[in-house]
């Protein structure tokens, strides 16, 4: 296949130069966006790593101080092993779940598709509260801990597994969702065993997705400070070290130093991503026949059981928090009440924060999805030789590795700098939207890239030889085929914006406090039930967005995938 397309592309390249110009222009636009909204803010913060509090240049002195911090090695090691263990648990679970969703004929797939997102439908405080209610010192299931404490590495790992599961599953489900049925027919005709087919057809097709998922989970765990802060006790990790420097000691310079150390996983992730790219070839060619799993009990029943177990666990954890939002005071007064939903009693912003969050998340989803998908398309289908393609690809992987806290501070320093014309968006909703689009860029980018890569470049080649401009191929072929992935990205952005805390806590203004920040404030004030209540409202809104997406998928599928039948 690749042998045929390569020379074809070569000849097309000469004819299709207006297309190339258009795609090159998109490279420049994409690069400008990520430079302004990511690279420049980050570098203006990271410059602080080489300055003292007065702003004088001190070279590597801060790094020297940091390296001698006694707890550094301990923190780094703690970060690495908790992240590695979480990855080892999450990726196989997510693969099995995604496999069940895409490659089996089990019943209730739409239900499993909706449930898998539960963990990211609410701020991370919600699972932390649930785990405390379940396994804490007063917890309902504390006997499972067998005298051990939830406050420490096991609490962190448990909460992170829960929290990272959707991100890994979304990537793997997209990677597994489009397969060429001909390969399976051929394999069966050759009498290959099922195991052999799995090893030689299914797995190679999903390698890129597997690498991405592992990289994403590992980096998410390393950079998240919300979970270790609430449930990690005094178990030090690198992300809480940043928190200590910035929020505890208000030392932005040292915070910038640790922030730089945390970027190391990003660079490793980028290298891994490039490596996986060389292993990857398009699986859905123009002549592809979509793979349709036939009913087979030996596969469908275990898949159903496994997905059901995972889904019930997720529902159980969320269910505990929902119950927690309806009680007066854990664990001493379990009388049911709706008072916790009267938010103006606990926080001056009240329900206003919820409406603001919806507005802010909608804007993030609409703008972010368009941007992510167009940039990803220009990268995947644009000129490989483009000098901006490499830097653009690299920039797209950075946001994942930047702790929200670091990104939030970077935005203050860059956008609030005197004389920066972009300063007009400071303190408004616009900066929250921009920040969230960038903060959640990587997972969306990887999803878009995975979806686009599964389309054979032949589509473009044929269009080009028929003198169809690239934007037309894009809107008539790419978008319809990728529509499920596009909707997935939009909902992911919406939900992430609804639940994010770490970056926006530094950026909201007097009139733009989001609901997720209110959740943190109410919990800090000792109003755990009210905090759980607002988290549940966020959860309900996110869940509605997801159900709407699934519904639209069903409707659209009838039109846009008609060609596949």
């Amino acid at each position: 296949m690749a042998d045929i397309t390569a020379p074809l592309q070569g000849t097309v390249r000469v004819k299709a130069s207006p297309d190339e110009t258009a795609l090159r222009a998109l490279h420049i636009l994409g690069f400008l966006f990520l430079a302004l909204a990511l690279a420049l803010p980050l570098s203006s913060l990271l410059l602080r790593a080489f300055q003292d509090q007065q702003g004088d240049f001190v070279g590597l002195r801060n790094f020297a101080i940091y390296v001698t911090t006694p707890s550094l090695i301990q923190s780094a090691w703690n970060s690495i092993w908790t992240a590695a263990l979480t990855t080892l648990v999450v990726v196989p679970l997510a693969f099995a779940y995604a496999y069940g969703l895409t490659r089996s004929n089990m019943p209730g797939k739409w239900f499993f598709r909706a449930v898998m997102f539960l963990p990211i439908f609410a701020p991370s405080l919600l699972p932390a509260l649930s785990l405390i209610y379940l396994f804490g010192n007063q917890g309902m299931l504390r006997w499972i801990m067998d005298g051990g404490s939830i406050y420490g590495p096991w609490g962190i790992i448990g909460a992170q597994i829960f929290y990272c599961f959707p991100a890994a599953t979304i990537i793997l489900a997209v990677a597994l969702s489009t397969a060429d049925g001909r390969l399976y027919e051929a394999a069966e005709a050759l009498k290959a065993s099922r195991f052999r087919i799995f090893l030689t057809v299914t797995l190679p097709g999903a390698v890129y997705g597997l690498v991405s998922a592992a990289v994403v989970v590992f980096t998410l765990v390393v950079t998240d400070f919300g979970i270790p802060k609430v449930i990690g006790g005094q178990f030090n990790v690198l992300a809480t070290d940043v928190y200590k420097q910035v929020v505890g000691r208000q030392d932005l310079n040292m915070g910038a130093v640790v922030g730089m150390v945390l970027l190391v996983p990003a660079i490793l992730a980028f290298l891994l991503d490039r490596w996986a790219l060389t292993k990857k070839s398009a699986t859905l060619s123009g002549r592809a026949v979509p793979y349709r799993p036939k009913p087979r009990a030996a596969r469908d029943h275990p898949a159903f059981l496994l997905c059901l177990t995972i889904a019930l666990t997720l529902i159980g954890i969320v269910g505990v928090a929902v119950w927690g939002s309806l009680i007066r005071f854990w664990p001493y007064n379990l009388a049911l009440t709706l008072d916790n939903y009267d938010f103006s009693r606990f926080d001056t912003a009240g329900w206003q924060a919820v409406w603001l969050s919806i507005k802010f998340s909608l804007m993030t989803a609409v703008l972010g999805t368009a941007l992510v998908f167009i940039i990803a398309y220009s990268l995947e289908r644009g000129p490989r030789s483009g000098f901006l393609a490499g830097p653009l690809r690299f920039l797209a992987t950075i946001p994942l590795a930047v702790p929200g806290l670091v990104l939030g501070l970077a935005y203050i320093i860059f956008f609030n700098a005197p004389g920066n014309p972009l300063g007009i968006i400071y303190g408004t909703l616009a900066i929250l939207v921009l920040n969230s689009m960038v903060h959640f860029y990587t997972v969306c980018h990887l999803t878009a890239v995975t979806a686009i890569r599964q389309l054979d470049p032949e589509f473009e080649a044929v269009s080009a030889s028929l003198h169809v401009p690239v934007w037309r191929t894009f809107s008539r072929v790419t978008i319809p085929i990728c529509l499920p992935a596009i909707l997935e990205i939009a909902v992911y952005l919406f939900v992430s914006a609804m639940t994010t805390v770490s970056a926006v806590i530094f950026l909201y203004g007097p009139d733009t406090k989001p609901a997720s920040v209110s959740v943190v404030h109410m919990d800090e004030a000792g109003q755990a039930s009210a905090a759980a209540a607002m988290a549940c409202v966020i959860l309900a809104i996110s869940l509605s967005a997801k159900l709407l997406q699934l519904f639209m998928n069903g409707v659209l599928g009838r039109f846009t995938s008609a060609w596949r039948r």
Partner: protein
Amino acid sequence: MRFILFALAFLGLAPMAEAQQRTRLTVYTALENEQLAPFKQAAEAALRDVEIAWVRDSTGVITARLIAERANPRADVVWGLSVFSILQMESQDMLEPYTPQGAEALRANMRSNRSPMTWTGMDAFVSAICFNTVVAQQRNLPRPSTWQDLLDPRFRGQIVMPNPNSSGTGFLTISGWIANMGEQGAWAFMDRLHENVQQYTHSGSAPCNNAARGEFGVGLSFDMRSVTLKNQGAPIDIIVPTDGVGFDLEATAILRGTRNLEAAKRLADFTVSKTAAELYGRFYAMLALPGVEPTVRGYPAEFAQRLVSANFAEIAASRDRLLAEWQRRYDAKSAPR
């Protein structure tokens, strides 16, 4: 809404039109949530042409924001922030010198000693012990009345306190011990206390919140924290130790570079007024303005005598050193036990 206001202004409804002219002051604060509405109401009633727009967050977050925004301050006034944060801002030359009218009447150790002043105190909050009586009964814990009582081996693994490197409340706690016992004595005390500590949390509010939920028997925090929790039915007692407690001030300052200096000065004047002090007295037992009787309940009569005498400037100056020493002693071996 704005359209309606304009329409009303057209109709000659002068008081409504005046609302349009109000100066909007952005006020950064770490006050408790339930204090925001009454404080705003009182200030706007006293200064008719000023509107208060709060940005409230925990002490650490709001201070980090203020310092990150230093090059181009967005806040006009800071009203209700730990004096340690304010002193840090002072050392970075971020405060506008201004002596509010009547500020000389404040207790001398509760206001800036510069002239003109850079900050003024509002009230003091003190370190305290949140003691869960139900857990205490279950685990047979004695009721502590002094810090020294916490060294009792029966408290082994029962105490939770904020990590001073993450939380202002944690620093308040250890600075109180240092002021009270001297630095050597305080380190010796903390070495022994460390044996009984189950966990150093990153959040200053977590120890008391978790003690209220029975996760731990004893949480070290500050006095304000317990009121909300008790009202919800938590079985906790708030204990202000009798052997001297550290205190922190809530303070007010004007940001250097504010775009609304005149209105900011008038708000600063209001924050040291008797009206304002009476307002603080609804929540705090120790006020910066002498002669105002606090109306908050549940504090012992001789409360003021339990406060250690603290030199805030001196403690603030040695903060980095103290935190580094604390980290060296207790944080490096913080693997779970």
